[in-house]
C-alpha cells in the first residue's frame, strides 16, 4: 500500500479553495465567542441589531438608556443589542496507525477534509484550532484566525504522519479527555476518525459532549474495510492489527465474510447510537467517495457547512 498519508501533494487545490469560499461553518448552537466576529453571540452587545429591552438597574451604562421610552412611560429602560462574536472551530484528526490504511488512504482523506474545514473557518474569521491524537493529543495548532494563517494550517496538516510504535494504538477516551481540557472555549468540534478503537466510545464522547461544544463525528472507512474481498483477504490468513500488532488467525470463507460485514454494520450503528445519545452529529463516509462530494454535498446536508 503506498504511503499516501505523507505525500507532499497539495491538500487543497486553488480551484477547490475558491469553491469553499462560499461556505461557512455552521453551529447548531449559539455559542459564546471570545472576540467580536461575524457570528451572533449569546451575549447582548454592541452590534446594530436590536435585541430587547430591560429595566435599568444601578450601574448600567447610561448610554444604552432609551430616552424616548423614558419620556413616554417615565421609566428607565435599557436598550439591548445582539452581540456578534467569532466561532471556535476545532478539527480533531485521528493519526493512529489504523488511519494509514486503505486505498484511498484514510489519513490523507481525513487531512483533506480537515484542510477544507479549516480553510472555511479561517476565511470567515473563526477561531480555528487543529488537534491530532493517537493515544492522547499528539500535536496542535491553536488560535488561527483570518486568511493569514492558511499556509500554517496547511503546513501543520501536511506534516502529520501516522503514529508508529507503542503510541500507534489509539486511545480515544484519553485523547478526548485531554482535548476537553485544551479546548475550553465553546465551539464546533469536528472529530475525524475511523473510530476503530478498542476502548469505550461512550466514555470518550462524554468528555466532549455537553452544552459547551457542538460536536460532529465523521467516521471514515476505506473500501477495503467495508468489503475485505477487495483487499484480497481470502483463504487461510494471519491478520495483524496495524495498531497493536494483535494477531487473528482466520480462514476466510464466504460465511465469515458475511459475518464480518454484518459486524461492521452493527459496529457503525453502535457508534452512531453512542453519538446520538451524546448529542453528537454523526456521519460516515467511505474514502472512495470523492472528497469534494463529501465536503460540498454531504457536509452541507448534515448542517456542518452552510
Amino acid at each position, binding site marked *: 500500500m503506498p504511503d499516501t498519508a505523507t505525500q507532499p501533494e497539495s491538500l487543497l487545490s486553488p480551484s477547490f479553495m475558491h469553491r469553499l469560499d462560499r461556505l461557512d461553518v455552521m453551529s447548531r448552537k449559539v455559542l459564546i465567542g471570545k472576540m467580536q466576529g461575524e457570528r451572533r453571540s449569546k451575549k447582548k452587545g454592541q452590534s446594530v441589531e436590536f435585541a430587547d429591552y430591560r429595566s435599568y438597574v444601578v450601574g448600567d451604562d447610561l448610554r444604552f438608556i432609551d430616552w424616548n421610552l423614558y419620556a413616554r412611560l417615565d421609566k428607565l429602560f435599557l436598550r439591548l443589542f445582539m452581540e456578534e462574536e467569532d466561532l471556535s472551530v476545532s478539527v480533531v484528526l485521528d493519526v493512529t496507525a*489504523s*488511519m494509514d*490504511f*486503505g486505498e484511498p488512504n*484514510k489519513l490523507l482523506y481525513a487531512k483533506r477534509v480537515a484542510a477544507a474545514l479549516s480553510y472555511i473557518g479561517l476565511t470567515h474569521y473563526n477561531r480555528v484550532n487543529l488537534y491530532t491524537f493517537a493515544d492522547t493529543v499528539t500535536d496542535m495548532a491553536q488560535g488561527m484566525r483570518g486568511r493569514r494563517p492558511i499556509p500554517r494550517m496547511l503546513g501543520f496538516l501536511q506534516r502529520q504522519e501516522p503514529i508508529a510504535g507503542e503510541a500507534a494504538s489509539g486511545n480515544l477516551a484519553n485523547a478526548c479527555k485531554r482535548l476537553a481540557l485544551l479546548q475550553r472555549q465553546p465551539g464546533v468540534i469536528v472529530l475525524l476518525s*475511523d473510530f*476503530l478503537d*478498542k476502548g469505550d466510545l461512550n466514555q470518550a464522547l462524554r468528555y466532549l459532549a455537553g452544552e459547551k461544544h457542538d460536536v460532529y463525528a465523521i467516521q471514515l472507512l*476505506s473500501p477495503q*474495510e467495508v468489503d*475485505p*474481498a477487495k*483487499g*484480497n*483477504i*481470502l*483463504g*487461510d*490468513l*494471519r*491478520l*495483524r*492489527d*496495524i*495498531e497493536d500488532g*494483535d*494477531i*487473528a*488467525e*482466520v*480462514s476466510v*470463507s*464466504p*460465511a*465469515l*465474510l458475511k*459475518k*464480518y460485514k*454484518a*459486524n*461492521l454494520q452493527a*459496529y457503525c450503528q453502535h457508534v452512531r447510537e453512542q453519538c446520538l445519545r451524546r448529542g453528537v452529529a454523526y456521519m460516515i463516509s467511505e474514502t472512495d467517495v470523492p472528497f469534494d462530494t463529501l465536503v460540498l454535498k454531504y457536509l452541507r446536508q448534515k448542517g456542518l457547512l452552510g
Partner: protein
Amino acid sequence: MSFLSPGLALLFAGITIPLLVSLYFLKLRRRMVTVSSTLLWKKAIREMQVNSPFQRMRRSLLLLLQLLILGALLFAMARPTMETIANPGQRVVIVIDHSGSMNATDVSPTRLDEAKKAALDLIDSMGAGGDNGGGASSTGETSGGGGTSGGAMVVSFAQNAQVRQTFTNDPVLLRDAVKQIDATDQVSMLEPALRLIEPYAARSSADDSEGLVVYIISDGRVREDGRGLSLAGATLKYIPIGGGPAGNAGAADPDNVGIVSFSARRDFDKPEIVQVFARVANYGSEPVKANLSLSLDGKVTRVQPVSLGAAPAVVATGPDAPATPTSGYETSVQFDFVLPGTALLELSHDHADQLPVDDKARLTLAPARRLRVLLVTEGNAFLARGIQSAGVRQLAMMTPAKFEDQAPESLSRGGWEAAGTSGLAGEGFDVIVFDGYSPTTTPLVDSLYFAAAPPIEGIRRIPSAEEDKHTSERILYADDSHPLLRYVVLDDVILSGPGRLEVSPQATVLATGQSGPIMAEIVQDGVRHVVASFDVLQSNWPIKISFPVFLGNTMQTLGLGGMSEGAGVAYRTGEVVSIPADTGDSITYTGPETLTVRRTQGAAVLPPLARAGIYTTDAKVQPPYDRLGVNLLDADESDLRTAGVLNVSTVAGDTTAQRAGIRREVWRWFVWGALGVMLLEWLVYTRRMHL
C-alpha cells in the same frame, strides 16, 4: 475382511497420522495480512463459532478428507483381502444356460448376456485370487499353487450340454470360453450338464482336499424328466437371471406371448382339406389381446384375434399338466382350409414381447398323398392283414409270376406329386413286400422281403440246411433304436429254420439270430431294402403284438419317409433331422444359421438345430425337405418367469470342513477410493480459496 500385512500399515499409520494432524494444526501456512483492526474479525470468528456448532468440523473438513485419504492408503498398504467364491483347492464349474428363454430381453440386452456377465464376474473374482499365490500360470492347467483354486470349468447347456473349457486357472481361457457361448432356441435340459459334471463331483467327493462348487447361471426354466435332478458330491449354487417375482432386481416384469404348439393334418377322407391347430399362451402378468396371422407361402390368409388372460402364478407343465387349459391365459385356435399341394405355413402373433423366437411357428405342409403297397405272394393272409392294419390306403396283391410281367418303372410312383391327390389308382406303389419270392430285378421302390432277398451285391440270403429246417430259434439281438424296430419286442418270437443273411458292411443289421444276422437293411441308389431271412409263416410272430407294430413302422418309414400321412413337416430346435437325399455329395441349408452336411447312405443328417426359423436349400431334395420349419414350441421356454429355486438334490458333503476361502486382494479399491477423496478434497480446497 482380513489383512495380509497389518503390521506395516499400523507402523505407517503411527507415523503418518500424527504427522498429518500436527502438520494441519501446527504448520498451516497462513498468509500474513495487515488490517486496520482485528476487532471486527475476532468478533466475527467468535460469533461463527458460537452460532454454528459444526463450524469447527467444517473448518476441519479438509483435515477430515486428508485423514480419509491417508486412511484409505493405509488400508491399501495393509493388503486387505476378501473371501471369494471358492476354497483353496476347490474347483468351480460354471454352468451357463443358453436355451431359448435366455434370449429374452427383460434384462438388457438379453438374459444370456447377463448370464455371461455374471460368469465373467465369477471368473474375475477367481482370477484375482490367483494373484496372492504368485504362481498362477498364464496358460493351461496350473499346478494349483498355494492360495489358488483348483481351477474352473465352463459348461453350457440347452438341449444338450457342452464342455466349453476344461478345468484351468487361466482366466483368459475361461473368459474366452464364456464369451463364445452363442444363443440357441433350444429347450433347457440341465440333466446332461449334470451328467457331464458328475465324474468330477464324484472324484472331488472321494478326495477330501477338494470340493466342487457348481454355479448354475440360468433362468431356472429347466425341464425335468420326472425323476428329479441330482448331483452328488458338489455344492450347487444357483444364480437366477431375468425378471419375475424371483428374478433379478430391476429386471422388467416378464411379458411374453408364445405359440406353444403348432401342427397341421389333412383330413382322413379328403386329404386336400387341411386343419391347422395351434395353442397360444400368455405368460405375462397382464391380460393380452393379440392377432394371430396364418400365412401360406408368405401370404396372410387368416387373421384371428385372441384374448388371453394373465398367467397364473404357477403354470403346471410336464406330465402332470392338465390337457386342457385351466384358465384364460392360453387358448387353442384352429384354421381349416383347402390346399392339395405343398406350402409353407407360418403362424405369428403381433404382440410385442420380450421373447421373439416363440412369436412365430412354421411348418411345411406335405402334399396330400396315400400310401399304396404291393404284396407279391403266393398267398399270405397274415401278411395281407398286417399290412392293411398298418394304415395303408391301398393294398394290391400279385403273384410272383405276374410281378415278373410288370415293367419295374411302372411300379414306381415317381416321387411326390405336386397335385397331391392325382394318381390314386394304377400308378405305381410306395412299398413292395416280397413274401418268399426273390425278384430277378431290383425293384425301384422301397421294398420289404420275407424269406427272400433282392439281387443286390451287398446282401444274400442263405436258407437253413435241410436238417435245421425245423429247429426253433430265438432272436438274440434286435436294434430297437432303429426306426423300423421302435417299440417292437422280439423276445418272445420263435422262428423255425430262419436261415441267415450274408451282409456287406454297407448294410445295417437290424436283428441277429442264433446262426447270424436275420434282418438287415441296405440302401442302393436311394432305394431302401429291408430283408428278413425267415418266413413269417414259419414263426409265431404273426400272432404277436410286435408284428403289426413292425409292419406299421416299416410302411411309414419306407413309404412316407417317417412322416405320418398328410401331416406337415416341422422340427423343433435341438432335433436331429434326417433328410432323404438321392443325389449330391453335400447339402447346404441356409437360414438362421448355415448348415452343410454330407450325404451318406441316401440321407443327410443335420446336426441338432440351434436356432428357430426357416432353413432352405438349393440342393435337389424332395419337397417338403427343401424348406424346413424349425420352431421352439415349448411352454417351459416361453414362460419367462425366473424360477426362484432350482430343485437339484445333492448328497450333503462334510459340512464341518473348514472353509478357508480364497483371499482376494482388494487394495486397489482403497487406492481408487483415496484418489476419489483426493479429488473431493481438491474441490473443497479450491471452493474455499475462490469466492
